[in-house]
């Protein structure tokens, strides 16, 4: 009886507490409740914690060239460019002084604050000093602004969801293309095209500016780019009887190298990791019809590329790892770091990671332009700055995003990491052509390819869904339960269904 009494009172008081809480929440129940529930939905399942470990995988799951910014986070090794330290701050301030005469003030001259979220840039002193310098320069132009800087890993999209639900929204958020599209298709991002001026737009490469273009809307100010290059293991090339200074320039040449590797080493020459949209870019076939209402990839070219890989796989000339699986990129990177892969096709920014995790392999690495297909185009992975719809200072946010991505600031950033700028003027700086170490060589190679660079991400509202059905089908082909033609047939039919909705 007593026990029952105790139990009853426990339940009762819990209910009282609960109702008190609900009353306390009052009108804001809907929003703050949702914020808590995010945790709840995840907490029944324990939310993922180690973002640095997950980051490359998650961020690269749907991108054609898996060069995630998050990787920058793990590349704590400073880029060995002397004089950079001294040039960074002045560059930022020079930029400031040139614009200061025309700087527009926001919020009627009253104090306001801007919050910026980046991916994987805090924790590296070089990047921190650089960005703080940029913020200080911006504050000099806009004395009324307070800038709050937060940094997240691959979970940044989830953070934005909870932030929107709780009403405490950042003004500028760094996303890669696929994250931008995902959030845009859920209605979370501002159409930049509606608030940007034509002359502001003109500073960027048009191709890069239109990376996130859906219909007439553009959801992101392009920031920095990472281009596919080839990292080459010199020793393995030598063992295979090949010349590392004259690496394969085409996919056909890569296949020949694969044969040599198979006969003379226990490693593989290369591992395909490019998603089909990336292959489409390289080989010059379209993924979508021009009106974006139907699939267009079910072509002899696509079939030829799949058959090409199928034959290589049958001969044990490439690893038996589906390029379309979520972990193919990690797998190839790990294989390269283990000295079991001759050529790694990846973004130049990954050099720092190889240097840190596998210094012996790094010493033994040379860089070359990525092999090209029929189109001569090279996939690029873009990072951009987006403005959430819920931001209270959209105009000021855009101004700030444009400042962070202006020529001078991007150039200074490029000197710190193996990345490329999205503005035309910055990319023409002689710095990119200067001789230097491996990273500088990679920088030169990718800067020279920038004019042929394109983000291969399929840009439609349901991009995620399309990518998923496509990869399901291609994975089935890779594991042998479908022929290449069947996989293409099924995927294109599935795409037509999704696009018709």
């Amino acid at each position, binding site marked *: 009886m007593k026990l029952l009494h105790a139990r009853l009172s426990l339940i009762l*008081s819990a209910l009282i507490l609960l109702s008190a809480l609900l009353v306390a929440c009052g009108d804001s129940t809907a929003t703050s409740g949702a914020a808590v529930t995010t945790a709840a*939905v995840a907490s029944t*399942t324990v939310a993922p914690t180690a973002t640095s*470990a*997950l980051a490359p995988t998650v961020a690269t799951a749907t991108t054609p060239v898996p060069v995630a910014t998050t990787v920058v986070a793990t590349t704590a090794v400073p880029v060995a460019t002397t004089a950079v330290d001294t040039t960074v701050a002045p560059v930022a301030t020079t930029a400031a002084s040139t614009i200061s005469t025309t700087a527009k003030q926001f919020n009627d001259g009253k104090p306001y604050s801007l919050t910026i979220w980046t991916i994987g840039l805090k924790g590296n002193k070089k990047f921190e000093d650089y960005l703080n310098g940029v913020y200080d320069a911006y504050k000099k132009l806009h004395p009324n602004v307070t800038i709050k800087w937060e940094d997240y890993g691959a979970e940044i999209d989830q953070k934005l969801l909870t932030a929107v639900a709780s009403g405490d929204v950042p003004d500028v958020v760094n996303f890669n293309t696929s994250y931008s599209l995902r959030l845009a298709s859920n209605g979370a991002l501002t159409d930049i095209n509606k608030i940007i001026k034509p002359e502001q737009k003109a500073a960027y490469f048009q191709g890069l500016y239109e990376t996130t273009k859906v219909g007439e809307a553009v959801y992101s100010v392009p920031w920095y780019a990472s281009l596919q290059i080839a990292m080459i293991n010199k020793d393995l090339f030598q063992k295979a009887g090949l010349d590392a200074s004259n690496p394969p320039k085409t996919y056909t040449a890569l296949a020949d190298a694969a044969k040599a590797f198979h006969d003379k080493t226990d490693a593989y020459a290369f591992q395909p990791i490019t998603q089909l949209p990336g292959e489409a870019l390289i080989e010059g076939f379209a993924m979508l019809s021009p009106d974006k209402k139907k699939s267009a990839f079910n072509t002899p070219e696509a079939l030829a590329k799949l058959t090409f890989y199928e034959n290589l796989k049958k001969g044990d000339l490439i690893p038996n790892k589906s390029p379309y699986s979520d972990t193919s990129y990690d797998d190839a990177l790990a*294989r390269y770091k283990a000295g079991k892969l001759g050529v790694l096709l990846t973004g130049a920014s990954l050099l720092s990671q190889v240097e840190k995790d596998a210094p012996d392999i790094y010493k033994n690495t040379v860089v070359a332009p990525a092999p090209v297909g029929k189109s001569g185009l090279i996939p690029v992975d873009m990072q951009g700055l987006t403005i959430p*719809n819920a931001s209270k200072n959209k105009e000021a946010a855009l101004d700030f995003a444009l400042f962070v991505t202006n020529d001078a600031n991007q150039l200074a950033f490029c000197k710190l990491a193996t990345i490329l700028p999205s503005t035309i003027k910055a990319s023409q700086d002689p710095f990119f052509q200067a001789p230097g170490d491996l990273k500088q060589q990679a920088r030169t190679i990718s800067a020279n390819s920038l004019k042929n660079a394109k983000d291969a991400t399929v840009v439609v509202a349901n991009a995620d869904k399309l990518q998923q059905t496509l990869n399901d089908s291609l994975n089935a082909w890779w594991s042998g339960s479908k022929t290449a033609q069947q996989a293409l047939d099924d995927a294109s039919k599935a795409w037509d269904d999704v696009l018709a909705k």
Partner: protein
Amino acid sequence: MARQTSLSSGQLERSRAQQKIWTISRKRQVVAWLFMLPALIILAIFTFYPLIYGVILAFFENNLLGESHFVGIDNFTRAFQDKDFGVALFHSGLYLLVVPMLQVAAIAIALLLNSKLRGVTIFRAIFYVPVITSLVVAAVVWKWIYAPDYGLLNSGIRWFNETVTQTTIRRFHGPDWLNDPGLALGSIAFVTFWKGIGYYMVIYLAGLQSIPKELEEAARLDGARGLSLARYVIVPLLMPTIALCTIMSTIAALRVFDEVLVMAGGPGGNPNKSTLVASTYIYGRAFGGIGGRFEFGYAAALSLILAAVIWVFTLINLKLFNKGGLEYYS
């Protein structure tokens, strides 16, 4: 009359004493509640409130970005037609195979470590190390162990082939543990097994130490040895502990998340959906990793279905293990 008075005074005294006890117990109750209050507040905010909100959410279409409307039981009807969720639930069910293996192994190790051998504490510590390791860190390390060609496990197999069986395969490819649809879920489940064993072992050690020594001695005098001692004395007496551990590990297996997410490289169930489990599927649906839309309402409905499945399994467990302990002999 006098008798009545004395009676009433006795009653009075008794009621006074009762009152005293009542006030004391009341005071104690207030103190007890005060002690419980902080925990209750935390529970209310972080457990009861999200729980209730989650149930409500299951009847809405909600993307957390402001769009929210009532859809009745649509989320549930959709869930029952969702093939991928069926696959995910099936894999979560398969994952339950870890439970009996884990319990048998944990009991066996606990029995071994319950002896008074020298250095036994070192072994206890060794078996407990995985428990205190972060699951995500462990999963990342295991991913490396399982890596194809160059992974630790396959390098071991290669070394074994070359030195022990004297067979050299020039281009050796061991099993692709995390990339073969037939092996991936099992390989991940082994990490759960490896990580859980120490945890349950400690609980079983405590359970073993609470078994009255007289009963064991009496059984020995009656000639029970080894297996028969375990079968007729130790296991029955350990039954309440076994029930507890089985229920806990059943729940844990049905909602396994971290190791699957890390080792499969995302919620997609790589390779070929062979590692799609209920929790990762729900997570993928909520946060856009599966399907690209933020479907919190649908994810909440799926969570409720998973909770119902867990509840059913817990009831089955309770039914199976309700006999045991000292009652076994009565």
